[in-house]
């Protein structure tokens, strides 16, 4: 192939006044951006930089800065620099463009157009510092005909760590989140890559996934869990399967996934035993039978156009927990075109599904958990007020562990030890520190939520669930307000 005509995306700036040639950047960059010759000559390869900021953060003299490469194309509103660069990349390689994390584009974010209520005069607000405030919630089938018989999950905080498979993320991410979930009284999710033998003790605190590839799925895996989640789809890449390249299937990943090391791990697009809704009912029943009706069965779907009908079907198929993942949900790798163009915002999906299930009188048969781009406690509050029982977070948890959102997870060269299975990189995430940071984050969110609930005069999370009167829309059209089922500000 001829000379690559792509210029770098980022420029690494080194302040020579400050650089002390200590070599920390050289040793920390897995992309080999920084180089130190024996004669003390420092040089950088900008085209390898992914702007993960590892070098800049660790540089003891703050000598490094990374900026977008200043050389820009001639201004064009249609042929943006990104669209031109994408064509260069495909013309060079002939490949499907791959990217990591969730949809980064400028679609409307409905969380940012919702405002939360507070009490003034007519009912008192509550001071969460001194008065009781209940954040406990239960997930599962709460149909009054079957209450008490169906297995439930008890959450001390309406937040859980969403599915990220070992392989796409490092073992230390799993360790961090497993420890954090236990300490917080909530659950983490294994993702579709099985459970590493080191984490067997944390299985009972885990929601274990059964996905189309059936990696690491065996009777002990199902038994040693809090709940089983059938992964139909994920928000970052609805409708397609997954592909963990052999380079990431290390000896350890091989143990958990139960496939030979260094072989590709391909998840088919569908579960081949689910081609229709009654097949989903069949797999749910199969898993219930296999776990002797002791575990709640969750079904995770991506938020797509027909989500209300899908949700109704999933509930009627017997799912105890319905998980809806919006198009901002993260991923280790997704074809960029799919990540950026397929699916819908989870806020809309949630509002519509909750209403639909209530209209059909089946909302109590299932708990509704949403995920996909939840950034802070206000997003969580809004989701619960729109009708969610609980919220899954993953990207936010990874950011707490150090992720800098460079979106290059699929390379396996994560400098923060998160999206990698290389031992030398994996060790960069100390799970003792990681779990502490994850606990801190959720404890802080929990406190913020208690403050906001107190402000509304509510002291139990159940009273917020589906309480859309606690929300008002701002800057939304009448149709959007209608779809969200909330009033406009001032109404």
């Amino acid at each position, binding site marked *: 192939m001829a000379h690559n005509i792509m210029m770098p995306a980022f420029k690494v700036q080194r302040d020579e006044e400050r650089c002390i040639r200590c070599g920390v950047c050289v040793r920390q960059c897995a992309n080999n951006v920084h180089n130190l010759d024996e004669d003390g000559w420092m040089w950088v390869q900008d085209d390898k930089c992914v702007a993960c900021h590892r070098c800049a953060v660790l540089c003891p*003299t703050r000598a490094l800065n990374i900026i977008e490469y200043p050389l820009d194309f001639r201004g064009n509103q249609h042929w943006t620099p990104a669209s031109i660069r994408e064509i260069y990349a495909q013309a060079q390689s002939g490949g499907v463009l791959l990217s990591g994390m969730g949809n980064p584009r400028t679609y409307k974010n409905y969380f940012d157009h919702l405002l939360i209520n507070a009490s003034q005069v007519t009912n008192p607000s509550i001071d969460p510092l001194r008065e009781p405030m209940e954040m406990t919630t239960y997930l599962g089938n709460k149909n009054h005909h079957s209450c008490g018989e169906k297995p439930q999950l008890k959450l001390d905080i309406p937040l859980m760590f969403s599915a990220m498979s070992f392989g796409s993320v490092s073992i230390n991410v799993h360790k961090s989140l497993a420890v954090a979930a236990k300490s917080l009284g909530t659950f983490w999710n294994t993702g579709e890559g099985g459970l590493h033998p080191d984490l067997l003790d944390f299985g009972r605190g885990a929601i274990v996934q059964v996905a189309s590839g059936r990696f690491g799925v065996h009777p002990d895996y199902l038994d040693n869990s809090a709940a089983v989640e059938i992964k139909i789809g994920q928000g970052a890449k609805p409708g397609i399967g997954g592909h963990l390249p052999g380079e990431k299937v290390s000896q350890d990943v091989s143990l958990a996934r139960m496939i030979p090391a260094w072989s590709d791990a391909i998840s088919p697009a569908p579960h081949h035993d689910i081609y229709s809704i009654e097949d989903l009912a069949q797999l749910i029943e199969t898993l219930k039978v296999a776990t002797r009706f002791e575990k709640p069965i969750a079904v995770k779907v991506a938020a797509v156009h027909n989500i209300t009908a899908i949700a109704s079907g999933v509930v009627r198929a017997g799912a105890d927990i319905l998980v809806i993942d919006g198009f901002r949900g993260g991923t280790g790798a997704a074809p960029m075109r799919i990540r950026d163009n397929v699916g819908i915002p989870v806020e809309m999906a949630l509002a519509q599904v909750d209403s639909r299930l209530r209209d059909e009188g089946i909302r109590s048969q299932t708990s509704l958990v949403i995920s996909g781009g939840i950034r802070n406690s206000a997003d969580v509050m809004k989701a619960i007020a729109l009708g969610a029982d609980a919220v899954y977070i993953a990207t936010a948890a990874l950011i707490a562990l150090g992720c800098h959102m460079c979106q290059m997870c699929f390379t396996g060269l994560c400098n923060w030890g998160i999206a990698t299975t290389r031992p*030398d990189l994996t060790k960069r995430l100390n799970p003792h520190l990681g779990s502490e940071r994850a606990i801190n984050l959720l404890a802080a969110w929990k406190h913020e939520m208690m403050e906001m609930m107190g402000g509304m005069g509510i002291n139990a999370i159940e009273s917020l669930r589906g309480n859309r009167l606690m929300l008002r829309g701002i800057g939304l059209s009448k149709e959007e307000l209608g779809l969200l089922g909330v009033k406009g500000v001032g109404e």
Partner: protein
Amino acid sequence: MKVVAWTEYCLGCGLCEIYCAAQHDGYNGNVLKIFKKGRPMHRSRLLKAEQGTWLNTCMHCTHAPCINGCISGAIKRDPNGIVYVDYERCVGCYSCVMLCPHGHVRPWSERHQVLKCDLCRDTGLPSCVANCPNGALQLVD
């Protein structure tokens, strides 16, 4: 008290050495200043071996051979148990360098004295521990 390295999480980034050097000799942790103006001498060394990297640092032994062998009484133990060098007294005989079974005491040739970890006894938490980006160093009793 001593600093314990947790090999499992040591990245080998070398920041411990850098901050160690900067913390001493009046630089108060100013990395830039010591590297630009001074002569950075770190007290502990980052070791690299096949099985990984770790900070090799003084264990402040209860029966420290370096104290026993010091001909000028320059190596002392403070009330917290920290073994340190009194540079007023050190004459650079290097007995301690030879006596330490772990190589934790190094010659400081240009001053004709020795270097060893003093757990940053004048400034609080050892600088290596405070600046390890991955919690791989811990100060233990």
